[in-house]
């Protein structure tokens, strides 16, 4: 803590003057940037439409309620598709992520110089591209349908699962692996019995958690044609059938809550 000499008296300050100025200028710059950002957005906004949002909301509410109960039956099939997309996509993502995780972890990678950077780059790319953008690309390649959705979910999950698992591998104690090797086990044997049991709980927990996220993501993939309930949603919005949209939204809400409960239950069991 700096001490100032002022009029022969010593004065205690929390920060030096330089620090104080730096903080002040930082806050000023941040505020200026925020104001500039806000005015950019304001310039791009049709305020007339924003101001009558209340009217729009009431209008929307009146068109959404009462929900079209007869449509509920038609929602079941796409909803099941959504569950399948999330589940298969997660499974496939985990299968791709595991070898990448072993290639990316410093303790298990075959080559720190060549293999590890490539594995990490693949994981980062997978995470940086949102699943709906993966879906956008895959629909162009594979045509609309569930397959594109499953692959989109899988490709996005690889980065998430891979990163968390490779961190778990790096944090796992190496002693069991060394012990196995001193008893004459091969590298593969030593990893399978010395390392894998240590990371299995993390792997299972991360996969379940990603499954829960994927259920949520799978509900919207249909907007770009990748199957599931999002396709029904897009069709209803395009046809301005808002009484159906509300049915779909309730169905999505129910599914998401269900997935969250299942996931929380399983993760609690895993400890």
């Amino acid at each position, binding site marked *: 803590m700096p001490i100032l000499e002022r009029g022969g008296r010593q004065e205690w300050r929390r920060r030096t003057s330089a620090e104080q100025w730096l903080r002040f200028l930082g806050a000023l710059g941040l505020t200026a*940037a*925020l104001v*500039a*950002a*806000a005015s*950019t*957005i304001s310039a*791009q*906004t*049709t305020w007339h*439409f*924003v101001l009558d*949002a209340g009217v*729009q*909301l009431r209008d*929307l509410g009146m068109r959404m309620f009462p929900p079209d109960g007869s449509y509920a039956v038609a929602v079941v099939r796409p909803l099941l*598709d959504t569950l*399948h997309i999330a*589940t*298969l996509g997660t*499974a496939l993502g985990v299968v791709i992520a595991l070898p990448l995780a072993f290639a990316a972890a410093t303790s298990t990678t075959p080559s720190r110089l060549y293999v590890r950077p490539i594995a990490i780059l693949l994981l*980062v*790319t997978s995470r*940086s*591209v*949102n699943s*709906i*953008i993966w879906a*956008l*690309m895959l629909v*162009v*390649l*594979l*045509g609309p*349908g*569930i*397959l594109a959705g*499953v692959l989109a979910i899988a490709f996005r999950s690889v980065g998430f699962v891979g990163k968390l698992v490779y961190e778990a591998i790096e944090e796992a104690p190496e002693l069991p692996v060394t012990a196995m090797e001193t008893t004459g086990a091969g590298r593969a044997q030593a990893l399978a019995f010395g390392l894998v049991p240590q990371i*299995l*709980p993390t792997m*299972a927990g991360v996969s379940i958690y990603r499954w829960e996220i994927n259920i*949520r*993501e799978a*509900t*919207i993939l249909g*907007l*770009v044609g990748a199957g599931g309930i999002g396709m029904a*949603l897009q069709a209803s*919005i395009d046809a301005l059938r808002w009484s159906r949209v509300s049915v779909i*939204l309730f169905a*999505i*809400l129910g599914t*998401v*809550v269900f997935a969250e409960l299942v996931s929380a239950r399983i993760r609690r069991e*895993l400890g």
Partner: protein
Amino acid sequence: MIESAAHRRVILGGLALYGLLVLVTVEIDPARIAEGLSRTGAFFVGWLRPDFVTRWTDIRAGLLESLAMTAVATAAALLLSVPLGLGAARNLVPGPVYTTARGVLAVARAFHEILVAILFVAMFGFGPFAGVVTLVVGSVGFLGKLLAEAVEEVDPAPLEALTAAGASWGSRVVFGVLPQVMPRVMGLVLYRLDINFRESAVIGLVGAGGIGATLTTAFSRYEFESVSAILTLIIGMVFGAEVIAGRLRQRLL
């Protein structure tokens, strides 16, 4: 993990059966895939030759708009999530307030950002304003919940000391709780900035502005060179942001 071998076998068998059944329902159309594969060539050629130049004006405008949306939304969300987060902490407020705040936070996180964006675009019209409101809703749910969890984990000793000295509820929060949770909140805000930027690339799909709008346009015009350029920029900026955020966090904490 699962103690009984019989249980394990039943669960694994069930999962395998489910996988088989589901694989049947996935309609795989080889003819369509073959058709798509011929397009894959064009796609990957475009991918490998990102074109930053042709649509640069649009890309730049989209990126700047995304950055502006990210900044405004994160700042607004921080302001809103502090009262909500404090209200959702069991050790600070009475039961009814706790339940209400937790309820608001749960609703804010229930729907995917895209669905929220559809609603707000219908309400506020096309453009970045709907996008900002969408990002605010998602960020409040995220920051509020994690802030509440941080507040519930604070060391109770300073709080007790303040109470014993006769401090009011406000002073207890300002001097007993906030100093303990602020470093964590700053870390979360930096992380949320990163998430919001990435989300802003997505909600443009349904008309909520930002680089996502540019991306969708490029996609629907099959301009894969521009698509590749935009995605490269997004990945590069997210990567750069991660490096900067890491440095900032080290200096702040």
